[in-house]
């Protein structure tokens, strides 16, 4: 198969993924970037990156995980451009204004970045461990350990809050 034809197929796959999963990409990007408009830009930029480099996708893992990596990186760049030193912030909610922050939300914001990203990808995007590993460019075992640590940390802090 020629490179041109293979590229077209990949483009169609990317388009199908974009149309079916756009809402999920936007949601995760929103949680990372902390702003819906920047999040939308990040999704567009992430997909643009994936489109440009689609010929380099080797198919070692799921295409979706490969695209997630591009979108997550774009969202992280968007956050750094706006607030270089700020931790992840609670984003506005669909233009209806921020809602009151719950205890758990605050605790999630205090987690290290990798743990937060793993939680976002696990719960917002419903990705399995392998896909999360691809998206974050880490080993599968690291994802498992990261999520376990995040859960343990939240459990500990929630217990402390209860006392």
């Amino acid at each position, binding site marked *: 198969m020629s490179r041109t034809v293979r590229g077209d197929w990949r483009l169609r796959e990317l388009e199908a993924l974009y149309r079916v999963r756009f809402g999920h990409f936007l949601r995760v990007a929103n949680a990372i970037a902390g702003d819906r408009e920047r999040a939308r830009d990040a999704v567009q930029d992430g997909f643009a990156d994936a489109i440009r480099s689609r010929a380099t996708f080797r198919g070692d893992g799921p295409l979706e995980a490969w695209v997630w990596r591009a979108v997550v990186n774009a969202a992280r760049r968007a956050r750094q451009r706006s607030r270089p030193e700020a931790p992840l912030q609670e984003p506005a909610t669909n233009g209806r204004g921020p809602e009151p922050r*719950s205890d758990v939300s605050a605790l999630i914001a205090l987690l290290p970045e990798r743990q937060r990203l793993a939680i976002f990808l696990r719960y*917002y995007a419903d990705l399995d461990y392998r896909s999360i590993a691809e998206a974050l460019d880490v080993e599968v075992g690291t994802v498992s350990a990261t999520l376990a640590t995040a859960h343990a940390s*939240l459990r500990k802090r929630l217990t402390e809050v209860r006392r």
Partner: protein
Amino acid sequence: MIDVEPRIRAALERLAPPETVEDANWPDALRRAGVRPRRRRGATLALSLAATGLVLLATPLGSAVVRGVGGFSAWLSRQPGSRAPEAVQRELAEADRQSWAAFPERPDVRELIRTKVDGASYTLHGFRSGNAVCLRLTVRGIRGAGPQLACAPVSELRATRDLIVPVKGNVGLGTVGPLPRDPGDPPTTPRAIATFGFAAEEVRAVLLVSDAGARRAVLGGGAFLHVLPGPARGNRVRRAVALAEAGRRQTVPIAVFAARQPTGIPARKARGPARVDRVVAGETIGWFVRREPRGAPFEASRLGRLLPHQTIGPFARVISPDPLDFLRMVVAENDLGARKEVCYYLVTRGGAGGTCAALRELFRRGPLALTWGFSGAGQQFWIASGLASDDVARVTVFLATGERRPAALRDNVVIVRVAAAKLPARLVGYDSAGRVVAVQTVGGR
């Protein structure tokens, strides 16, 4: 030990609510990548079909697809197919005027598919009104085959990962032979059975697999229509197979309702929280007890005809938990002397139904008192509805597929449509602090 997962999920729901696809703009992504958007070619379909290895049976459906449009996004933007003639617009408006559950916005009816099968003409129309998207099949040439209307929530088309969303399955049209008059008379069979639903943009073919084999559906205007003429007794369409670009293929079961349970769908366990975080007691519905005039007044002269055998007390209100949906609920007092009951009747376009219970009994098993069912034959979206106590701030539906949907909740009334193919569903009530206070499973365990 604290089970943190439900609390994480609840917190994340608030942190960043589910997003819609309305902001999606693929051409913009292409432009950013320096790629000029191009029109599709038909070659992909041929390759996709070949890749499935399925033998497509010749179909008698001679389709006249009105216009191919972009999948669910066309439905969300209200522009699938082409605008239906004025006579059709007026016909639906008149039907709406006489309905107990009128659409919140006057629909702009779209013509999606027009075809002929076995001498009968079939036209599939569709429209979006508020938060409901509906398909309406009209048939000419089969006696007694009235219009078939079925609706799905817009939220399903926004959030689903499926390529197709069936809304009606195995609807019998007309009859063959005389109707049975005595217990020993043989049952009739329909002249045809129809199955239809929504189709995403990337879908290039839909196959319907029945007990008699696979046949290709007509595809157009963001919808599909399949008609099986002269089915043998008991023959049913069991599943739909969507074939999309790049060799994607997806099978969606067509649910059949039997003995009050969905059949024909995969046996799955319910997902989502199974236990409550907080046990609440003494639940009630404050506004009802205080007789506050919530919602709209109950028009006895109109809605009363819908509930001829019910005792509607002096205090009755009509609640629309989603003002942009036509489904609503009558919440009324049933005055039986010393024993006062609250009655709740779901009002659909096809009729009304519900039950009554003493308030103290209503929430005896938890702060959600829901029933479920459907309105009309072959519906692929079933409705869970009922009352929630004051302790419930929101309700989320956890589907067996792992997907989640929000349920409309206002003035203690809960109404949500659930895709039958995704049952069992777990309806989970949360309090204002995000704690699970109610869990009710419908359509299985």
